[in-house]
């Protein structure tokens, strides 16, 4: 419950998101940054997987990384909370530790 899982790679490049979801206990949070944000685009196999994950985890994505990659807010699946770097910092204080799935 006290872990913030940070995923920074695309779910199609690497298995980091998959492994994260396998090893994240219900109640822990997931934050997508860098190329990890591609997972929240609706209509993809990764977003379908994330939709399931939302039942057990709050899922966040870094706004700056989405913007950089041209992923528009309207194209995201429901239930994703966007954060800025300030929000990223806050999340790391809220959760006892951070696990970076590189």
């Amino acid at each position, binding site marked *: 419950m006290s*872990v913030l899982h940070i995923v920074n790679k695309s779910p199609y490049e690497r298995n980091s998101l998959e*492994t994260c979801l*396998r*090893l*994240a*206990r219900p109640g822990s949070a997931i934050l997508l940054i860098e190329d990890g944000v591609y997972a929240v685009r609706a209509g993809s196999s990764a977003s379908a997987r994330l939709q399931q994950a939302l039942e057990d985890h709050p899922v966040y994505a870094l706004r700056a990384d989405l913007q950089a990659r041209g992923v528009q807010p309207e194209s995201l699946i429901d239930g994703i909370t966007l954060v800025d770097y300030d929000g990223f910092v806050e999340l790391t204080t809220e959760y006892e*530790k951070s*696990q*970076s799935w590189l």
Partner: protein
Amino acid sequence: MASKKFLYVNRKAPHGSIYALESLEVVLIGAAFEQEVTLAFVDDGVYQLLQNQDSSALGSKNFSPTYRALGDYDVNRIFVERESLELRGLAKEDLMPLTWEDEDDDWAEKDSIHVVSSKELAEIIEQQDVLLNF
């Protein structure tokens, strides 16, 4: 300050990149700090523990024997994810038999490697204080 629980998460194969070697270097230095150390091997990280690694034809340092010394550094909590092994067609027998000597049990030699389920490893992760990834 009370000691902290450090978890080293290894997910990358050895030799194709330096992460395995440099992660091990942290573990060895870290052993001197008297914190509680745990190692986790997940995904391609399990390949780091495969037996019979011989990098001589590559001309690169074969650091796999160093894993065998971990027991001497009091690093004896080594968890390998079962699912990662099975996906790769591996079993515990394929891994180096890492052991340690338990001074509280008449120096009995014990296994350092524990193959655990994803659920068990998830719990282990939650129990840690500091999570290092490479």
